[in-house]
């Protein structure tokens, strides 16, 4: 079982879940060993009461806790990890595959301060960012970030986050002369995050492909046109100018939403495997299914049996003896 996941759930639900788990999963050897460590305080500053539920009102939650405790061996099984690519993806610019939406936090109207804090918590080296050059110095240029170009799609345009692209991270466009002379303030730049100082909220970027992870190294860095801005950002801008528009309306009026292949596309994007469909019913676990019961296997067996009978009936077999 996944210890960290179990601990995360226990932290949320508190000691009542722990006692439910103890009684429901008492016959489960995996759980017994985990229970010892999961019940211990986690690393870091020890909380006042280690298993105090995060929210006060846990009583109405008891149904959910019972559910968790009964299904814990399935819910926390390591085999349940999704197959989604762990590496960050390119933003899908084609609007045909699915409904690309403005960022969720924009609809939730989360304050800028929190968006900023979470951006600096979640941004990673190798992420692609897009911004406008705000000033050019001898040592490099500064850009104000507009949006992300890979990984997490966030609403950051109004946060006035600046990043520095040092001179050494600017490829030169001619054999002589200043590499920076190629650029002007106002240029839209696509760059890779090279360094992050989360505490001071400072970012350094690079225009070299080597700053990107291997699967993104084909993406062109440097000056881009406004047509190349990601779709999610353009949708975000539209939403800003019409803030009453609902998530549902935007989604349903999007071309990608009615794409016949949208479900298959998103299943792959999210790493959900239909050929090995998940369930929380014990009887529907994949180990209860056998290839011998599949339609194709049955058909084959049946065809062979019919063919043999045809031969026997026709008397042909006499010629074989």
């Amino acid at each position, binding site marked *: 079982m996944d210890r960290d996941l179990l601990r995360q759930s226990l932290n949320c639900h508190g000691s009542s879940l722990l006692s439910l788990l103890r009684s429901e999963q008492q016959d489960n050897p995996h759980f017994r060993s985990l229970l010892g460590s999961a019940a211990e305080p986690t690393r870091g500053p020890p909380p006042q009461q280690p298993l105090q539920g995060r929210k006060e009102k846990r009583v109405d939650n008891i149904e959910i806790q019972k559910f968790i405790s009964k299904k814990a061996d399935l819910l926390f099984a390591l085999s349940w990890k999704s197959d989604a690519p762990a590496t960050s993806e390119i933003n899908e610019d084609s609007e045909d595959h699915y409904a690309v939406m403005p960022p*969720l936090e924009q609809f939730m109207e989360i304050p800028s301060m929190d968006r900023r804090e979470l951006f600096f918590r*979640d941004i990673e080296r190798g992420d692609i960012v897009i911004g406008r050059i705000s000033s050019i110095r001898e040592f490099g240029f500064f850009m104000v970030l507009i949006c992300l170009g890979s990984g997490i799609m966030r609403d950051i345009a109004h946060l006035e986050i600046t990043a520095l692209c040092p001179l050494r991270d600017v490829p030169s466009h001619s054999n002589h002369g200043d590499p920076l002379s190629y650029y002007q303030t106002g240029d839209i730049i696509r760059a890779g995050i090279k360094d992050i100082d989360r505490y001071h909220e400072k970012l350094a970027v690079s225009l070299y492909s080597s700053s990107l992870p291997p699967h993104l190294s084909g993406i062109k860095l440097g000056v881009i046109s406004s047509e190349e801005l990601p779709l999610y950002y353009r949708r975000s801008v539209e939403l800003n100018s019409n803030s009453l528009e609902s998530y549902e309306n935007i989604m349903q009026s999007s071309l990608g939403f009615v794409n016949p292949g949208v479900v298959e596309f998103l299943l792959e994007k999210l*790493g959900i495997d239909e050929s090995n469909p998940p369930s929380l019913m014990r009887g529907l676990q994949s180990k209860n299914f056998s290839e011998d019961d599949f339609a194709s296997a*049955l058909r084959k067996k*049946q065809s062979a049996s019919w063919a043999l009978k045809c031969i026997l009936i026709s008397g042909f077999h006499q010629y074989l003896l």
Partner: protein
Amino acid sequence: CEGLGHYCTLGGAAAQGSEGRPAPEARVHFRVARFIVEAGVNLGMRSIPIATACIIYRKFFCETNLDAYDPYLIAMSSIYLAGKVKEQRLRTRDIINVSNRYFNPSGEPLELDSRFWELRDSIVQCELLILRSMPFQVFQHSHKYLLHYLVSLRNWLNRHSWQRTPVAVAVWALLRDSYHRGLCLGFQAQHIAVAVLYLALQVYGVEVPAEVEAEKPWWQVFSDDLTKPITDNIVSDLIQIYTIDTEIPLRPWPSLPKEKPGMVSCLGTLPPRRHDGWSPEDQLGGLVVLLEKGW
């Protein structure tokens, strides 16, 4: 069946018999739903066609008495119909083989005899029966909505948090399992999608970042008219499905209704009541009607 907010009596509170246990009819429908899901997996059906088959089956018995037709035969026809409508055409031979195997796990493959052909005919005839009984209703499944919500949520969550928490797999499991009961006949597709997601996040103790500071909670964003009580109702019904699962033995099969004349015994199936002998033109017309009805 009434519209949204009321269950078909087979799936919801009204299905409770005495002592709060599922009434006998509800138990049959639960078992048949399980049959559809299992058969669907063995037929390689995707989630939405399987879900559609479950719904077709349920809606049929909203209109019709359980005694009138063999539920498993209706289920097989529902599978056949769902395959056509949801672009995953299945062959009746495969449906028959898989179903036979379900009831006779250690048996030999079926002979290509008159009983086989009768069964095949029954499936096709039931298909038309089902088509003609469908009230006009454009039907939406939750799957598409749920997948989009997952993408939106994933972008807002920390990616390491997302990677270590199997939210996507869990919600897909929950949604698939929900078709054991007729939840989607009592609630809006979007509401079910949100509720399933809500439950998964609760299960794993996932906090949506800055939830407290937000003007609008994430679940309200996804559906304007969703309320916390509706979400709680759906979650409660979802969880109940798993309780019912432990209470209803799925094998042995429900004893079939008293012997009716002409009953086909190989799968314990009944031929449909009406033996009009519908023509191919009728059959085609029936399919057109179904597609026009928004299936």
